[in-house]
């Protein structure tokens, strides 16, 4: 997962690609998530990676050590 982290500058060769993703969100929800991402010094995309991992793990009953909760 570390190789998929977002980095500034030109994408490196052989690096795992990040894909553009479009969804819909309520502005209030976006504000909450943006504020939370700023507190963690992350972008929304990076926060989405973490949240999806947590959500899937919670749904399947797994426990993630790096849970941001």
């Amino acid at each position, binding site marked *: 997962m570390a190789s*998929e982290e977002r980095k500034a500058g030109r994408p490196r060769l052989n690096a795992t690609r*990040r894909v553009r993703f479009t969804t819909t969100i*309520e502005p*209030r929800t*976006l504000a909450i*998530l943006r504020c*939370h991402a700023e507190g963690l010094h992350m972008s929304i995309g990076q926060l989405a990676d973490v*949240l*999806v991992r947590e959500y899937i793990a919670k749904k399947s009953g797994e426990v993630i050590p790096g849970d941001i909760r």
Partner: protein
Amino acid sequence: MITDEESWPDERGLWRDGRGRIRSGFCLTGSYHVSSDDSLEALEEAIIRNNDEMTTRELMYREVGRKKSGSHGRKRSPKAKPVWDRMRAEDDDGSAVRVGRPLIGAEVRVPFHTSIAQRTRTMLIEGGVTLAEVFDASARRLNARGE
């Protein structure tokens, strides 16, 4: 009660006051002598006999088509009223999939573009969840915690 001479009906039979305004209200009180003769002389005689112009006003009230006379003012369409059956319920978060127009009071979802890891997208597809669901659930949880 109209007493001045300027308050006689005009050639169209409309009652106007001294300022040219059309009088629409008539007070139909009292008992009056009504002649079976509909000539103008009989009408004037009835006016003198009753010593009241209300008889004439009553006649004019019946003869003048109120819908066709006078100014009815500017026509306006009725003010739009909110459709109460489309109001959002208090316990409804308004984020469910819907068909048609959004509910009143529900916040509109806006398109949002971001970049996620390929693996994250694969997890979403395999887990059968959408990023919108994850965002909503996470925001609810964070909001409940007061963040």
